[in-house]
């Protein structure tokens, strides 16, 4: 049992999991995710589509086997860190002690007359003085002790990132609210309502979008308390602990129904939305698309020449009992008449789409990311090293040392520094 557990926590097993993860990620990025069986059958073959659906390859990153794989990796990281913690503490407490008689037996990596200079030039500040058994002077110093924690902190960081991400996936809430200036809409199933106080699309001279800006007010429908602010792309707004993101935009227009010359119904429809006629629900009108600067192409396909409202046109569809009754483009003030009803569109304007999110575990993932970075810096750039020197009978110093990471480079550096001060002994 202990043997199996040790293997589970081992680096070998970690490498196996990482390789499987690489395979899973590759599959997840190559196979388009989130499509239907019919889509896969159409794009691949029935057989492949069946395999895709059977193994959850249509949603690799949320499939049970991927979650299990990630949990196994977490277990491995946790076990590995728990196993190494006592060793590291022991090493910090007792591992870096001058042991003259054992250390002088290790091969010499350099000779110098001025040991203190070599120590200092290599970044060894605190030098301890001892005597060997035979009474020779012995110097010892250790640097970058914190470096031994690098890998451990990095693994801990990874674990924290995965936990933070996993908890976020499980408990985060996400709602979408869209509308035009002046509209108030509920935020999903929550107790909050969102009012769009203003929405502006900043256009450059060449009609490209510079920024989307939404001014919003969120109201707690239970207490009546409100909070306001502005959100734009790259500048989310936080209201009532929720993050509000400027996600996208589109066109909307007021859809008006008249009967016998009298306006009986009007509603703002965002492109793609439907509106049944209240006193004749079998008849449904939809604003399929809006072209602010209508200019059909050579084949007559509708398109817009710019993003400014210069020549507005509305692509509509009318359904009668779910069957398409008609579809066409209405220019400006043109109307459609169906039976007694006249349908027109007016006041085209941009609508804003706001994402309202709450993920209390994001800071945990952020802490994890920071830990990974700190761990890597410690591991790669604070390489723990020990340097010692024993004085020979002629007064010169013989240097020895060790560095678990980059030992050869360390020895080379010691050799170079000794060479720098060699004239003293020659």
């Amino acid at each position, binding site marked *: 049992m202990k043997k199996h557990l040790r293997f589970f926590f081992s*680096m*070998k097993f*970690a*490498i196996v999991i*990482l*390789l499987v*993860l*690489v395979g899973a*990620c*590759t599959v*997840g*990025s*190559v196979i388009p*995710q989130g499509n239907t069986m019919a889509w896969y059958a159409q794009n691949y073959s029935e057989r492949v589509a069946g395999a895709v659906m059977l193994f959850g390859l249509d949603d690799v*990153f949320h499939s049970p086997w991927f979650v299990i794989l990630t949990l196994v990796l977490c277990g491995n990281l946790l076990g590995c860190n728990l196993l190494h913690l006592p060793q590291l503490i022991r090493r910090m407490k007792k591992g870096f002690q001058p042991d003259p008689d054992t250390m002088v037996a290790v091969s010499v990596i350099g000779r110098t007359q001025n040991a203190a200079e070599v120590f200092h030039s290599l970044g060894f500040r605190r030098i301890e003085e001892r005597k060997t058994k035979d009474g020779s002077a012995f110097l010892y110093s250790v640097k970058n002790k914190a470096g031994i924690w690098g890998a451990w902190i990095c693994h801990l960081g990874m674990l924290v990132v995965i936990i933070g*991400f996993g908890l976020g996936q499980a408990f985060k809430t996400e709602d979408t609210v869209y509308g035009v200036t002046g509209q108030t809409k509920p935020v999903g199933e929550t107790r909050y309502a969102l009012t769009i106080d203003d929405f502006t699309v900043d256009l*450059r001279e*060449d009609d*490209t*979008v*510079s*920024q*989307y800006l939404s001014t919003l007010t969120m109201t707690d429908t239970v207490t009546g308390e409100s909070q306001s602010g502005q959100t*734009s*792309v*790259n*500048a*989310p707004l936080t209201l009532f602990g929720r*993050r509000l*993101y400027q*996600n996208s935009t589109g066109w909307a227009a007021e859809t008006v129904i008249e009967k016998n010359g009298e306006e009986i119904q009007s509603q703002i429809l965002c492109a793609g939305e439907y509106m049944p006629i209240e006193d004749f629900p079998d008849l449904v009108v939809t604003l399929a698309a809006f072209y602010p600067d209508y200019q059909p192409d050579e084949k007559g396909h509708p398109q817009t020449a710019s993003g400014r409202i210069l020549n507005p046109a509305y692509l509509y569809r009318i359904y009668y009992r779910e069957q398409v009754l008609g579809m066409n483009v209405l220019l400006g003030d043109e109307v459609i008449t169906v039976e007694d009803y006249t349908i027109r569109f007016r006041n085209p304007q941009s609508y804003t789409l706001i*994402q309202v*999110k709450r993920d209390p575990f*994001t800071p945990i*993932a*952020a802490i994890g*990311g*920071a830990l*990974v*970075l700190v761990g*890597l*810096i410690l591991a*790669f750039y604070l390489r723990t090293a020990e340097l010692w020197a024993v004085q020979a009978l002629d007064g010169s110093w013989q240097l020895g040392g060790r560095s678990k990471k*980059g030992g*050869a*480079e360390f020895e080379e550096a010691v050799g170079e520094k000794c060479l720098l001060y060699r004239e003293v002994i020659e």
Partner: protein
Amino acid sequence: MSHEQFLNLENILFTITMFLYLFSMIGYVFFFALKKEMAGKLAGYAALAGFILHTAALIVRGIGAGRLPMTNQYEFATSFAWGICLCFLVFLWKYKFRALGTFVMPVIFIIIGYAAMQSREVRDLMPALRSNWLAIHVSSAIVSYGAFGVSFAVSLMYLIRTRMAKDSFWDEHIPDQKKLDMISYRAVSLGFLFLTFVIVTGAIWAERAWGSYWSWDPKETWSLITWIIYAIYLHLRISRGWKDKNAAVFAVVGFICVIFTYIGVNTWLPGIHSYA
């Protein structure tokens, strides 16, 4: 100077840079294949001159565009080549072995050649790219990819060294395999640290721009794959028997992943990073 004049100047500097890199590459090939010391020296000067002009080209483009030149395929490709050249010159200065250029310069030339094939049109930034995180995220990617480029070249050199007959010229100009392995490790360490920084800063930026710090977008996923490949490389080095040749092979595979993350993903796996 007008924006157009700046961009014309950039065009001239970029073209001269390409020729200098080409000259450097040819010089290094002569140096290595024909054992011509002088060719190696000239190639080194050409690489340095190319790097200086390349830096100037990027600065001029930045001034002409009124922003950092890191936002489209052309700009990232030329910055990527610049990053590899920077890392190459730093490693050359630190470890002082000229033969490194023989393996690095072709990589730089291919990438700058790829840049030359992209559209050089300057466009205003879309709202999602208008962020201070752009400079931090992309510049760290350039350093990371540059370091991985150097590790790739050193590892390739390592693998070729194992098959080369003993020769005093090569012995003088190519470090022994132990040192090559160590240099490759140093380059991977630098690249890995910066790649982690790229992923972390990218996540922070994505959270602000898209409302989600991780969306399994192909670019994100392939950055993670590359990160895992190099993580495996670093772990395998600790395992007995995986240093040296096997590690060199893994460093080469890692760089192939880097290239795929940059070019392959943009070409075959479009996602929300499609402008990168």
